[in-house]
């Protein structure tokens, strides 16, 4: 319990510092914050309206931050004057694309990594393991941008099934179209993730397979399949989850590139556009949401770890 509070406290500190720094960053070099917020060259009446909506913009940064935080907590994320759209609407419109890219790339990554990692560990130094370890090393060194180019050239331009530019189509509207539009952007990120996780799972499983309880299971005459999936994978799955959570922050950056490359209208493309226009509230809201998601997932994984594995709980209680 004390540990939980400590972690939540840490979470809040990180959130406040990161969002405050981002807010300061949006002000770098700015001559007239009100005008930036209003969207550049606009008439006096818009400026007056912005001033009326956000009367605190001439106060010190810390006070401005306080107002902004209060607005965020009460659910008022602001308004993009440049795009005449409230930030909440923007999220509703843009979030699904980004969510599905993230979800499917993690799914594809695990779909490749779990069987491959297990088999590589089971038949260590066998042909599959060799090929997997060389190719995963090469894949780790492949930037998302390079994956995107190669998938576009060798898949999208050769096979008509996959569009060169993707559109957002909800899976509940048309599962087939959804798959077509999201497969390549997700694979762009999923291949890199798969490589990281294959190596990680292999190393972890090799250690697990050497432990006594596996020896016992083997001595009892249990089938290799059962040993691998029921016993060995179970103890490795926790560290795999941590590894998934650790990749999340990098995934956010990768998603920006995948969206931009395949023309999906997601949060990432919106953010790049907002930075070009210095649409302050949009930048602040998007980074805040992304930081919350990333830090929150890490927090949950960390707590989950402590709940599932008693050894960790005890070690932390002692420390």
């Amino acid at each position: 319990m004390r540990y939980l509070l400590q972690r939540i406290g840490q979470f809040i500190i990180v959130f406040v510092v990161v969002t405050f720094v981002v807010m300061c960053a949006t002000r770098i070099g700015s001559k007239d914050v009100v005008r930036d917020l209003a969207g550049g060259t606009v008439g006096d009446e818009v400026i007056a309206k912005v001033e009326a909506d956000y009367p605190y913009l001439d106060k010190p940064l810390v006070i401005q931050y306080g107002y902004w935080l209060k607005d965020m907590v009460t659910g008022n994320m602001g308004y993009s004057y440049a795009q005449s759209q409230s930030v909440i609407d923007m999220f509703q419109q843009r979030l699904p694309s980004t969510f599905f890219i993230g979800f499917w790339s993690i799914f594809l990554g695990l779909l490749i990594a779990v069987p491959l990692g297990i088999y590589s560990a089971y038949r260590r130094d066998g042909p599959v393991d060799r090929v997997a370890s060389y190719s995963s090393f090469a894949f780790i060194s492949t930037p998302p941008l390079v994956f995107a180019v190669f998938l576009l050239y060798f898949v999208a331009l050769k096979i008509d099934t996959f569009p060169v530019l993707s559109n957002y189509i909800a899976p509940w509207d048309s599962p087939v179209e959804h798959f077509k539009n999201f497969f390549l952007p997700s694979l762009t990120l999923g291949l890199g993730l798969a490589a990281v996780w294959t190596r990680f799972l292999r190393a972890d499983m090799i250690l697990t397979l050497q432990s006594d309880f596996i020896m016992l299971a083997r001595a009892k005459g249990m089938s290799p399949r059962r040993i691998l999936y029921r016993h060995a994978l179970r103890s490795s799955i926790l560290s795999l989850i941590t590894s998934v959570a650790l990749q999340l922050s990098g995934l956010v950056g990768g998603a920006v590139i995948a969206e931009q490359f395949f023309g999906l209208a997601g949060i990432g493309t919106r953010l790049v556009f907002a930075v070009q226009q210095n649409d302050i509230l949009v930048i602040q809201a998007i980074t805040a949401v992304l930081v919350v998601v990333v830090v929150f997932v890490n927090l949950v994984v960390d707590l989950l770890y402590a709940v599932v594995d008693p050894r960790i709980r005890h070690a932390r209680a002692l420390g």
Partner: protein
Amino acid sequence: MMTFLKKIRRLHPTTLFASLWLGALTFLAIFAPVLPFVRGYGERVKGAGRFKFGPGADFLFGSDALGRDMFARCVYGAQISLRVAASSIIVGLLIGGSLGLAAGYLRGWIDRVVSILVDILLAFPALIISILIVGRFDVLQANNEAFGWLTRTWSITFVLSLLSIAPIARIVRAQTLSLSQREFVLAARSLGAKNGRVIFREILPNLIPAMTSVVFTGIAILLVSEGGLAFLGYSIKPPSPSWGLLVSENRERLQEAWWATIFPCIMLFVTVLAFNIIGDRVARRFDIREAAL
């Protein structure tokens, strides 16, 4: 001479490949302006426009929309990307390294402050904070006379250095922690060595293998980030080439003129791979555990 050749032959083939590639690339990048077979990166050859030439003897990597030699642009791209990544990693090493060293050796409140700082730096979504800072530095440069020197090269180096501080500080701290508990440090202490002497004469030399590995892997990661930023339009400005920028310039014409997009991609991939191979080899040779994870 013979022993040198023997040494080379004993190298792992992938290491040999990686070193040769990086050696050749660095050579090309440095001497590009004086080499006769490398054109200027902005030189427009008459009659070569609109992707006229594919890869061939004259245009090794083909020509682009304006008749510029893709090979020359890739070589100058290497110059820019490598320079930015290398200078960023040096800054990161200086700042992150001293922070990590201080935290790991002195412990106490310094360690706590550095750890919090590192945690916060790692919580920033890297790509997002990078485009934000580069974008705002542009405005700063445009609006203020005093910041006229703040070109994209400076902004991008600043951003990449910032990104490399936290991971480096973390690794150095972990290494220093374990080193400072070793017997030779205790021995030096009991002989009356001062902190400065212990740090510079006992700990720092032992950090060198780990640092070498970190520098190579770090450059690989920074090259990837720079490529991503350049693709989004937040790195060096055109007409200066950078691999990511070349991809974003030419990808619309991927179908008709594959060379203009694929070659920069291959350059980026092989270079990142080569840095990773060497980083990995060094780490294995000196048995360095991934302290970052």
